[in-house]
């Protein structure tokens, strides 16, 4: 799980235990996650002491296309092919992403 955490030690420890119990791993490099401009926050939970927000799917894809293209090559192609993210290509270009990378020879 990638997440920018703002919480005290005990809350983080509890979160890590919950993730482990559910077979999930927190990526300790999450603080390096880049959130592109125009990203929209979507509220997932709002409790008395806890707020959890998601970044909209298109912005998440832009972030992946710019900072982890190798790991997400097929995902980005699939997203473009789906026509569900009409501004995805433009936003990759705006953020100096290498579009040609996603066209690179994929033959075996």
């Amino acid at each position, binding site marked *: 799980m990638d997440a920018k955490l703002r919480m005290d030690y005990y809350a983080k420890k509890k979160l890590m235990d919950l993730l*482990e*119990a559910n*077979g*999930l*791993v927190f990526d300790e*490099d999450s603080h390096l996650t880049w959130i592109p401009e125009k990203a929209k926050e979507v509220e997932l939970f709002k409790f008395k002491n806890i707020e959890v927000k998601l970044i909209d799917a298109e912005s998440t894809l832009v972030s992946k296309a710019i900072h982890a293209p*190798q*790991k*997400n*090559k*097929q995902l980005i*192609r*699939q997203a*473009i*092919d789906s026509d569900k993210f009409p501004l995805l*290509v*433009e936003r990759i*270009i705006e953020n100096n992403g290498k*579009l*040609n990378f*996603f*066209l690179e020879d*994929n033959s*075996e």
Partner: protein
Amino acid sequence: MNKRAFIKKIKEIAQQDKRRRLDSRYLKVMGFLVAKGFLYTNKKIHLNPNGHINLTDAIWAGRFVEPRILEVLPAAYGRFKKHFSGDAETVENLEHIIEMIKQKSDHKIEFYGISIEKIRPWFFIRLRDRRSKSLDERKVSKTFRFKPETVDILKKLKDQTGQSETAILEYLIATKRVDSSYKI
């Protein structure tokens, strides 16, 4: 290439990606990794927890269909060796990664472009079957020759506490009842 031409080309390659997601090599590997709890997918997939995986097929699936397979493959191999087979070079490569992780080495090694920092956590996650031990939970077999009275004490402690003899010894060592200054 203009934007329209780029999207057209991407759509062509995406069709190839789609065909590859139906390839039996990919489905078999994903079925195994999802069943064991290394990966998650929102697609309906036939789970394959007892399958036998060819490492060449797994690497193909990681390179051409789902790169996350490469991230978890060393840990899956390390924790379920009996389920895998492959050529000597790949096995040696994976054994080397496992050894580096056991030794907590900070050598910069990679597996098909994936850094050891990204590979390491998968050796320690709790898996779905709850039976396979992570690298830090695995027990190592050791043989000791004790004095008979020590064995008697150990047996008494076992009866009193209901703990195993191994658990009692581990507790004594962990609580440093015997520290490094101990001398015979």
